[in-house]
């Protein structure tokens, strides 16, 4: 017994040392495999982020050497730039309306598609197709439709409906941008929510039906809570992308008429690449980042009240 113990005792030690060497070797191999990705992330993500912070404290005009100006870009942004607060208001307005419409429409479409007996795949493809289309191309086509004397005005005229030209009216221009954004963006959430709805166990729904639950009860009390994690994901991602809206604004309105559609994303482009105020544009970018972080944090805080996880 003792002999066996004596001879058996070193075996785990050897295995442990062997495993440890193996782990280290595997660790090194993993590190080298991950290195290209790590280098890419540092070069194209971490360094630009740090550079952007530094630039926001300079007056860099893209051409020439940047000079340190302290927090004067931030002071100017909050106290002296006549466009900043209207731009923030426009961005929040766009985000609020687009987010609500996108989630409601995409959820409605997802529920409708999942209720279909036939053709579910086709409708998923149809609604997802605009997501494949480049945003700039979508915006150009819609810009032509909504421009003064364009197809939209022609249709309204034919129907004898008196509507101002969408892109030249201060109120309607943002609505035109939202319509285009919904058309282009609703498909992604539709497919996402539809997939989540399909994952809801039929046994739950059957049991509820047997217990006399109406269709609305089954949706509100069973399906919606069960897809709430997906709904939460869709809401957070849609809020982030809508705060960054740029393509549609750039092509369709250039922030106008006046500053009716000027948003933070467009303001960054305008200040940085049209006016060559790269330091100031970086400042706006960080304000936008702070807004996105704050909104996302609020959403994560609120999720405790309505998102239901299995665990």
């Amino acid at each position, binding site marked *: 017994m003792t002999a066996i113990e004596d001879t058996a005792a070193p075996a785990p030690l050897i295995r442990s040392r062997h495993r440890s060497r193996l782990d280290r070797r595997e660790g090194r191999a993993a590190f080298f495999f991950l290195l290209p990705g790590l280098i890419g992330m540092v070069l194209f993500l971490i360094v630009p982020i740090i550079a952007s912070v530094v630039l926001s404290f300079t007056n860099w005009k*893209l051409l020439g050497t940047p000079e340190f100006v302290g927090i004067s870009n931030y002071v100017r942004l909050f106290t002296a730039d006549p466009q900043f607060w209207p731009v923030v208001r426009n961005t929040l307005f766009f985000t609020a309306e687009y987010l609500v419409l996108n989630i409601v429409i995409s959820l409605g479409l997802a529920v409708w598609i999942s209720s279909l007996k036939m053709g579910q795949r086709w409708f998923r493809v149809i609604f997802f197709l605009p997501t494949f289309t480049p945003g700039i191309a979508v915006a150009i086509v819609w810009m032509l439709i*909504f421009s003064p*004397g364009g197809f939209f005005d022609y249709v309204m005229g034919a129907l004898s409906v008196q509507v101002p030209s969408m*892109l030249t009216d*201060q109120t309607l221009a943002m609505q035109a941008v939202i319509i285009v954004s919904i058309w282009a963006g609703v498909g992604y959430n539709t497919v996402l929510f539809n997939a989540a709805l399909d994952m809801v166990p039929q046994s739950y729904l059957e049991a509820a039906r047997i217990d006399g639950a109406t269709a609305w009860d089954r949706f509100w009390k069973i399906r919606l809570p069960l897809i709430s994690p997906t709904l939460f994901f869709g809401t957070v991602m849609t809020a982030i992308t809508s705060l960054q809206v740029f393509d549609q604004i750039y*092509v369709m309105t250039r922030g106008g*008429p006046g*500053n009716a559609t000027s948003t933070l994303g467009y303001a960054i482009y305008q200040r940085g690449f049209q006016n060559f105020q790269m330091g100031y544009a970086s400042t706006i970018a960080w304000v936008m980042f702070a807004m996105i972080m704050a909104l996302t944090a609020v959403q994560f805080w609120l999720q405790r009240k309505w998102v239901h996880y299995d665990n």
Partner: protein
Amino acid sequence: MKFNLLLAAGLLAGSSLISASQAQDQINLTWQMWGDENDTALWQSLADLVTEEYPNITVTPQISGWTDYWTRLPVLASSGQIADLVAMQSMRMPSFYSVLEPLDPYFESDGFDTSVFESSIIAGLGHDGTQYALPYDVGPWMVYYNRDKFAEAGLGDPALDWTFDDFKAAANALTEGENYGYAVQAFDFVAGPVALGAEYFDDGNNFAVTNPGYSEAVGKFVDLVAVDHASPVFASGTGAITGSGRFASGNAAMYIDGPWVLLNTKDSVDFEIGVAPLPRGEGESRFITAGSGWGISATSQNKEAAYKALQVLTGPKAAEILASAGRALPGRLAEQSYWYDVAAQDVHRTHEVLAYMFDHSTPFRLNEYWNEFENLITQYMPLALNGDSTTDAVLTDIQNQLPF
């Protein structure tokens, strides 16, 4: 046998030395230019002219779309990747002086005479007595009009010194329902007021767009849209391009643009077109001209070769090629006739109108905030045109945002 081997080795070594020396002399220049796919062959043919003249120099065009060009150029310049030869538009020069090599020392070295070019564009591509680029084209903004519609309305061709009242009368006479006499575009609020005698700058070359003269002149063009409804409103996203489309489709009888679009405009309409100077105000006619050219990058490693290439690219042969293709009214005076024979053929009075306009040209006043001003005009003028705001209020809004 040994001797033959030695001889062969010697020849081989000699030939490699020769080719090494040739390789050293070979200079490859890059040339940043805007354009579309249709222009590629044209720019390449100009690049080939350089190699014909200087066999050791090759020029490689790097072509990008118009909008992309102006986004890429500062980025490439700030990252040290700018090409040896850089295309430049006169209106955007003030933002790019630091990127370009002053050409005057080169002119002094070989006695180059810039008087062979139209004087207004030479001034436009220089600053404070320093020349930064040589031009390939030039032109003033002028009125394109539908001669058939003018004839139907019983209107004669506009006089060279027609007034704004004449212009307004024609626009109103040619307006009927959704068919407009005129299609306003964003830049009309720059070229038009200047032609009426107004200034958008103060004496210190700073923007002063709320001055009464400019405000009144802008108001005249605004009223054509907001009060007379002789022109449709343009949307801020399409401010620079809607007029040509409406004119080509016969929906508008007049619009304002430069000679650089004459060939395309002529080819895209099924009616006879004419050109006229911009209408004048109470005083003499005066017109701003613009154009484009090429300069040498201040960071180029091959400036001497780039200067040689620049002389070829802006030389008589290149100007003849561009003009004969109808691509540009040459900045070179002697070669302008080729453009008149091709692009302006069958377009009523082009030669006479342009000669009159060049005789009455006024300096195009610019500063480093020009780009912002032009964007603000496009973004804000629709508010005055659709009656949501007044001309004065819009100009005050624009002024308040300059020089931000």
